[in-house]
């Protein structure tokens, strides 16, 4: 049974189809939630809430292709995470002027694995992490991020540049650590 058929069955209320969809996407969605919410238990709860909302509103979803379904699911998960972060009042981002644009070295990205990148992102402070995730990974413009997080565009840009600078530093530290290990 392909995803389109699973969606149709889930719309009819088939628990088996829902379980199949959950099995297919749960891991990916958990990783999305983990990028925003550091605590694994909290991230799992957000993922479960997201799936709960997804199954509740699946009647309104029209399946076109897998990518659209993934995008929709991701959006639900991100919204859940942002709601959670807002409730926890972790967005105590001080208004800052726009910082200079720092671009990360492309070769640097190639040198490290996905798991390492993920772990580095999770280590970022919550404000940096959220803006970085929304801008660099989800591809949202600063205006949208600003309205989502209730901050100014300047603050969003500043947070992003700081996040990038910090990431760069962390990656360099990691590489130096590898180099030392190899020398020894």
């Amino acid at each position, binding site marked *: 049974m392909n995803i389109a058929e699973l969606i149709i069955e889930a719309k009819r209320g088939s628990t088996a189809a829902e379980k199949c969809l959950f*099995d297919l996407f749960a*891991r990916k969605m958990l990783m999305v939630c983990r990028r925003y919410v550091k605590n694994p238990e909290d991230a799992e709860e957000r993922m479960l809430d997201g799936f*709960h909302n997804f199954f*509740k509103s699946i009647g309104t979803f029209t399946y076109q292709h897998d990518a659209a379904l993934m995008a929709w699911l991701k959006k639900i998960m991100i919204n859940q995470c942002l709601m959670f972060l807002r409730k926890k009042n972790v967005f105590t981002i001080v208004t800052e002027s726009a910082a200079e644009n720092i671009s990360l070295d492309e070769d640097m*990205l190639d040198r490290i694995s*996905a798991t390492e*990148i993920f772990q580095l992102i999770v280590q970022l402070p919550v404000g940096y992490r959220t803006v970085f995730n929304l801008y660099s*990974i989800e*591809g949202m413009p600063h205006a949208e991020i600003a309205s989502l997080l209730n901050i100014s565009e300047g603050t969003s840009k500043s947070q992003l540049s700081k996040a990038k600078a910090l990431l760069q530093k962390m990656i360099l530290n990691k590489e130096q650590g590898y180099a030392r290990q190899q020398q020894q």
Partner: protein
Amino acid sequence: MQGNNNNETQGWKSKLDGLESLSAEDFDLQTSWQKLENLRVKSPRKKKAAWYWLAAACLLAVISLPFFFNSGKNIEPMVKQAIPLKNIEQPVTNGNADTNNVIAVASSSEIKIISKSQAPSVVSAKKYEPVLQKDTILKEADPVVATILPTVTDTFQLMAAAPVKKKLKVVPYNELVGSTDSLTGDSRPYFPVKFRTKEIYTNNTGSGKDNIIRIKLSSQN
């Protein structure tokens, strides 16, 4: 800037999209599904149903309130006033006209509108006999009562004593001239006649066969 963002996004996205789980972690799908099932069972489906029931009850209460209040009024005894028979002047009608269906009677010089709030008036050429005879009242009543009782001379006096609820305006015939029927081209004027709560316009004096009655439908009525 936007192009730069797209390049960056693609780089990070392609790296992270393939990432399904961290090697150090073991995520149990079955346990997680069980949690989701529990979450869905807890979800307020019953609460929703309760809200629907509450809404239905409120709606029912709103609908039944007017009936509830009106039912109290129905207990009160209805005092039906006797329809007073007025001393009607002998209408001047044309020869063989059927006077049973006539509501308003027009004399040659003016129209007198006769109306009663209780029922449609029917004007007939009959003369009403007095309902109570003077002699019978005096015979059946006690001598003491007879002295108290007012002497009823005839029905006309009784009717004159009855309170008239609504005085309708007497419109001279000349004032109505000028309005013609756009449909029939009839130059006879229409005049309003109150029929129960409706206002009826007619130019019928009861002489012709084509009796036209127009009903004005207004929000006031």
